[in-house]
């Protein structure tokens, strides 16, 4: 099977290149191959869209401001303070 034919029929490779393209760089040749595949493959065109959306969602989730309300337990803090004081007094 020629390289061109291989990518035209290969969704596994096309989705791999899609994620690699989004996250970093793919070669010019890979870029062309991907374009050709996507031209003829509706399922992978949808994958491109959804994969990009998932990246946005992950970023929004991880950076969500809800995390700013997290506080460390006071008892634990007090114990840490004691440990630190002990360490400081050692020296």
């Amino acid at each position, binding site marked *: 099977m020629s390289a061109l034919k291989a990518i035209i*029929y*290969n*969704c*596994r*490779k096309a*989705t*791999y290149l899609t*994620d*690699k393209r989004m*996250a*970093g760089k793919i070669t010019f040749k890979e870029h062309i191959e991907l374009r050709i595949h996507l031209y003829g493959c509706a*399922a*992978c065109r*949808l*994958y491109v*869209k*959804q*994969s990009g*959306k*998932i*990246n*946005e*969602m*992950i*970023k*929004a*989730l*991880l*950076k*969500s401001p809800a*995390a*700013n309300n*997290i*506080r*460390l*337990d006071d008892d*634990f*803090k007090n114990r*840490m*303070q004691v*440990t*630190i*004081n002990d*360490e*400081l007094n050692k020296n």
Partner: protein
Amino acid sequence: MISPPTDHQLDPKNWVKAYADYLYMYAITRVNDEEQAQDLVQETFLAGLNAMSRFEGKSSERTWLTAILKNKIIDVYRKRSSGLKTRELANAEGEVDDFFNGHDGHWKEQYAPQPFGIDNYDPLEGKELNGILKKCMEKLPALWQSVFTMKHLDDEPTDAVCSELKISAANYWVIIHRAKLNLRACLQKNWI
């Protein structure tokens, strides 16, 4: 020898009050485990005390402590994934092979992406689906979660993630791809 003037000084008596919450939040968003995050904060302070003589005053106290914590988090990532690496990749191979036909690499009919709610979903507005995403992410192997967290939360470049987690660039892309395929399938299945 006269040391250069420095702007920043260390005041360890004040660390808990000033930085414990910040460091805890930093840790918990990255290791996703309360107890482990607590331990990491404590270890960071103790390591800081031992390394005080090496503080040059070039960065702020908080930045300096955060850098110590970050190294400890990377150690956690490494520990979580050591030994599992080969097995996780092998398992993933199996999972990915389930999505595509072995002979031609085409989507299996039942796994081909379908349109679903995600297509018009605005992640900045709708927070209610974050729970589903979270559950789907928790199903991923530990190493993959580490890669995702470093990549998306800290915007770390690929080569930094690879060297910190000791994986090859080829493995990195394979992990990103497989994690994404699994996440997408999980979201499509569980989307309300």
